[in-house]
């Protein structure tokens, strides 16, 4: 069991220094994500301009996988429209759940999450932020749970 596959440098870096962390002024959409078994809590705020994510920030507390995944996600989706975000979500979902999925080049740094699928108990840590983003974009003030 190779822990380095899970805790890659990119993951550890984004856990230590999460990007886009903190409150977002003038958010148009937000959602809360909860992982009750772990106690992970994620609050996601998005400012949509038309169909495009103009800005996105997150707050909360969680494990390294959940924090790094949220940080990487905010970097990846900023500036993207809904269709592109959906594509990224599907790419990450496949990466986390389907064996032997090779990360598409469009995933960029998100490919660092590919080690998570070898640790089934941790997949929900990595996917919490994405489900929360879906909820935020689908409706305002939604609440999401991975359990």
């Amino acid at each position, binding site marked *: *069991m190779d*822990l380095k596959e899970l*805790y890659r440098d990119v993951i550890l870096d984004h856990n230590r220094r999460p990007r886009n962390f903190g409150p977002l002024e003038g958010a148009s959409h937000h959602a809360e994500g909860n992982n009750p078994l772990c*106690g992970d809590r994620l609050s996601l705020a998005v400012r949509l301009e038309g169909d495009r994510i103009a800005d996105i920030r997150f707050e909360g*507390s*969680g*494990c390294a*996988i959940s*924090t790094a995944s949220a940080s990487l996600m905010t970097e990846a989706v900023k500036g993207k429209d809904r269709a592109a975000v959906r594509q990224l979500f599907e790419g990450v979902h496949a990466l986390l759940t389907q064996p032997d999925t090779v990360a598409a080049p469009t995933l960029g740094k998100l490919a660092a999450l590919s080690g998570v699928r070898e640790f089934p108990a941790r997949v929900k*840590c990595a996917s919490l932020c994405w489900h929360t983003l879906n909820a935020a974009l689908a409706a305002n003030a939604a609440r999401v749970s991975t359990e």
Partner: protein
Amino acid sequence: MAATVSVATAPRPLDVEAVRRDFPILATTVHGRPLTYLDSAASSQRALAVLRAVEHYERHEHANVHRGVHALSQAATAAFEGARERVRRFINAASVKEIIFVRGTTEGINLVAQSYARPRLRPGDEILITGLEHHANIVPWQMVCEQTGATLRVAAINRRGEVPFEEFQRQLSARTRLAAFAHVSNALGTVLPVKRMIDAAHAHGAVVLIDGAQAVPHSRVDVRALNADFYTFSGHKMYAPTGIGVLYGREELLAAMPPWQGGGDMILTVSFEKTTYNELPAKFEAGTPNISGAVGLAAAMDYIEELGIDSIAAHEQRLLELATASLARMPQIELVGTAAHKAAVLSFIMQGVHAHDLGTILDADGVAVRTGHHCAMPVMTFFGLPATARASFACYNNEEDVERLVRALERAREVFG
């Protein structure tokens, strides 16, 4: 737990290597490494004697109980009722009528909440619990409070994770109808001064339920010496199967309580106009019970007494001291719960490493610990933590297990730099 036990001489030392051979699962490897099982507070492993007793019952004696005159039905009934007598002796209850088989501690508490508390409580009445409780000893009382209009009060804990007796006493009043608290905290390992607390609650006229899930496997429990009104515990934390547990209740209280669930076995006569209920303990055991579970529980009690509960307690206390001293030498580790009187449970955090990452890293080394809120979210909130890692010890753990835990924690520090 040693301090709750008064023995004139030191207990016979445990031959832990022989004990380890009694638990076949300990030979398992995890990710290519020997299993270091430090999660017995969540669920202990099964002793070979338990597995054999269950298998013998299933192969040679199984039929439904209390029904029919055929040989197997009688054998199954004898095994099941024999197990009840075994439990009675183990906790020194006065009568087998006071031993109700349930699924586990959670069901035992819910039974008392719904059958004892719900019909009696009125608005203005109070139920007193403590800040250490497992969700199973919080939520059933909240439900009863919603149903009756009674109020839930909580005796607060201090920074060491203790319930100061004075605080508990301060929360008691003539309005306290029921007090419910753990004998030993599952999240922190704190041993509560239950005898004093029971006496204090009784002095205010309250009935007392003790959640003994973490106490019965690790210390001598005598329900009559404690003068507990209700005492409940689970088989699977004491080397027996899951799905079997015990609710002890004083006969006088149980006799006055209405049945909780209806069905077969709990009736004397049924007509569409009127049903009469069976005597204790059958009144509270509707439906076919977990017969093989009861047989396994009885075998586990035999096994524990063979080893000697005082010997187990002394062994676990030694491991607790060793592990506490070892973790204290690690600067990044902070122990959560430092009560003066503890069972062999260590809750801790590592600076800069979330408990779940710690759990995964330890698992890669074959070390099984619990991570999370341990079904005691108010305890985590009190300490301002989302989660802790928890190592808990049982009769089969040895010093090598402590060393493996320490090495795995050092590795976690390396992974996270």
